[in-house]
């Protein structure tokens, strides 16, 4: 995993690469409360997957940040990267396609 202190991209992506990357829209789901995380864990351990899914959805504070803005600031190297969401601070991780290695 590449660490968060890695320097972001110095030069913006070319329009061509950005278009190739932006195949879909990706939004940050926002942070989940500690209580909700504990509840989700308990439900998963009990095998109650649907209830866990509902608890996860209900336990988040919606954010909606365009995560691709982060992706485009890091190398498109096929390697995992991680960075806090600029809006809500939740740590997000991604693996971009290897487009410019």
């Amino acid at each position: 995993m590449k660490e968060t202190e890695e320097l972001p991209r110095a030069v913006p992506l070319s329009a061509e690469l950005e278009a190739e990357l932006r195949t879909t829209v990706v939004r940050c789901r926002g942070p989940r409360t500690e209580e909700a995380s504990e509840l989700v864990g308990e439900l998963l351990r009990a095998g109650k997957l649907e209830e866990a899914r509902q608890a996860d959805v209900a336990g988040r504070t919606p954010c909606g940040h365009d995560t691709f803005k982060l992706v485009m600031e890091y190398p498109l190297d096929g390697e995992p990267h991680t960075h806090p969401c600029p809006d809500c601070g939740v740590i997000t991780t991604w693996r971009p396609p290897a487009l410019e290695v």
Partner: protein
Amino acid sequence: MPIVAADLIALGSLNRPEDDVTTSGGAIDITHRPVFTQFVATDVVEAISDGADVRTLNVTGRLATGAIDTEAIVLTGAVAVAGVKSFERILKLEMSATDGTRTVSVREGVAGPVRATIVPTEQDVSIMFISSASEVGATTRFEKFFWKNTHATLALTTATVDLTADPSANFRFAVVVAKDDSTSVANRKAVPGGVTFFDDNNAQAVPSGSLLATEAIGVWMELALSASEAAAKSTFTTQLAGNTV
């Protein structure tokens, strides 16, 4: 009638590797679901159909020793029949054939809770990432499933896919760039091209924003294991969400 949750179904891909050398992904397999509830404790498998049914249920699972074993259970219609082998976990439940009307329920233990349901026209359920062990170095594997809108007429609009639970923090997902696709990779250690994988803190939109009636969207799953990671029996939960009229 609007789209309801039961209209949105997770289905498998045609290539479901159980090793690191065979093809992974491909087109949708409408007879297979990568969904069931895992056994809570080591127990026998019991199966029951909802009517006349003499098909065979082929069970593959791990025994308490960790060894993979199989068992064939011949159905006796709507009378429950139990196997004799005790499984610590289930890997696959495969019917010998599809049936146009019969639903088979698979229970954990004799008269126990239903852990899997195989509905008419479908043939099997299984877990993903069977036999995906950690190695000396970090390891990533990629397998694929589909979300399908089975409603006959209505589109799921503003459709998004996300991971709603990843308790082991081992998984990432990527929505493919075209609906009803058939892309595959040479083996499950090969990275699918052209897609970006995200963790459970993100929701990824379906291409074009809507999943029309009978359309399906492929989703690649990434399982990332650290070097020499301890054995674990984990799960992930995903959802397809959207709007309906």
